[in-house]
């Protein structure tokens, strides 16, 4: 479902002496439907960079990143937008939403974008917020005012609202208490059971061991100084 083939990436900082910093080369990985693969490696090794390239948020310098039969590296913006609506979900570490939009609407939006009727979408959003223990009195409020853990749970609810065939998770359990961590891990397991291909970053070792089938150390993709 997700196939990363020989991908490289460098950043060129035009306004800082045009320094070019190679950050990744020869990155390759495959994720089958129903499989969860963890990206591991020290901070700064490139886990998030690789994940962002898979999502099309960062441009890869070379190589191929196939999601189904779409090559994210070469695809038109329009194709990537369509992919993100219907195929590829992403739960980032931070919630980024229009201020003053209610938590319920934030969670329902991915469903509305794929043409789900309004009532069905809101019903599903309510069920997810309930499951993630967001108290009902907060549903009509904007999540921009929520605590860090609450925001993260709204973000997770949003990421799981639509059943994407492929899903990227960037530290989904980072700031959660034990109960909610359990709920999120159950949701990840359920997504796997549905056949979702997942790439995740988990700093929580126990969580990683519980949900992930394999680990990929991104340090192997770090360009050597001599290269």
């Amino acid at each position, binding site marked *: 479902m997700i196939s990363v083939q020989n991908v490289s990436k460098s*950043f*060129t*900082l*035009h*306004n800082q002496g045009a320094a070019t910093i190679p950050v990744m080369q020869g990155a390759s990985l495959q994720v089958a439907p129903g499989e969860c693969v963890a990206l591991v490696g020290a901070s700064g090794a490139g886990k998030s960079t690789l994940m*962002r390239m898979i999502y*099309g*948020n*960062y*441009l890869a310098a070379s190589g191929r990143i196939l999601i189904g039969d779409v090559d994210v590296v070469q695809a038109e*913006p*329009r194709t*990537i*937008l369509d992919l993100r609506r219907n195929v590829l979900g992403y739960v980032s570490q931070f919630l*980024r939403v*229009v*201020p*003053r*939009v209610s938590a319920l609407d934030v969670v329902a939006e991915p469903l*509305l*974008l794929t043409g789900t009727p309004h009532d069905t979408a809101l019903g599903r959003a309510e069920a997810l917020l309930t499951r993630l223990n967001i108290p009902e009195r907060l549903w009509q409020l904007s999540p921009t005012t929520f605590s860090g853990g609450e925001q993260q749970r709204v973000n997770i609810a949003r990421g799981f609202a639509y059943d994407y065939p492929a899903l990227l998770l960037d530290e989904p359990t980072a700031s959660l208490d034990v109960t909610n961590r359990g709920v999120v891990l159950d949701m990840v397991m359920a997504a796997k059971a549905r056949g979702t291909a997942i790439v995740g970053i988990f700093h929580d070792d126990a969580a990683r061991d519980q949900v992930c089938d394999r680990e990929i150390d991104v340090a192997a993709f770090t360009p050597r100084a001599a290269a």
Partner: protein
Amino acid sequence: MTPLLQVSDIAKSYGARIGCTDVSFDLYPGEVMGSVGESGSGKSTLLSCLAGHLPPDRGKVRFDTRTNGLRDTVKMSEPERRMLSRTDWAFVHQHARDGLRMNVSAGGNVGERLMAVGARHYGDIRDAATDWLGRVEISADRVDDRPTAFSGGMQQRLQIARNLVTGPRLVFMDEPTGGLDVSVQARLLDLLRGLVREMNLSAIIVTHDLAVVRLLADRLMVMKDGHVVETGLTDQVLDDPQHRYTQLLVSSVLQV
């Protein structure tokens, strides 16, 4: 799928000075394209050329008309272009007073657009106007007030109602949230996002506010000195800018 708008090689100069040049892109139904750049970068000139307010020196602006497919709006006769601007296009000005008739009631402002495309039944027009005022969150008891009695944010929402009541397919917006205070901006952004989704609108938004395009635009075009220096997915251009100028622009945003 046919693009709704196909822009190829648009250029406009003011004497020896370049307004904008070599601009080409396709816009598909439901897509929102943002255009950012500093003042004088050519983004408003481009918008005027696309919307038929300014004749470009060269290039084509092909619009997928309902009856005849792709037609070059630059070469169209003035009446044809005017008809399109009433039925299929909308233009939201930065200053609401440029897009409203200030001494006609709010309901009249919205109803006038319907009459321009042939609506004649007073009751229907008034109902449609009241319905649209509701959608932009202007209460029904303000329908007979003039825009001069409205706040800046309300005027801007009225302008949007006036523009969208005829069910256009393409909306041009010039700094739609410029000059509004931030709490009003947020509400307007949410309103615009909802309308774009529900009506499957395509839009071209010119702004210098990167936060606005991040939330509203699917794709982004960065302009500098009349040239498009970078294009791509909005979040990709903002998070992984490739061009020197885009990097400068993104790194210059003040954090709250």
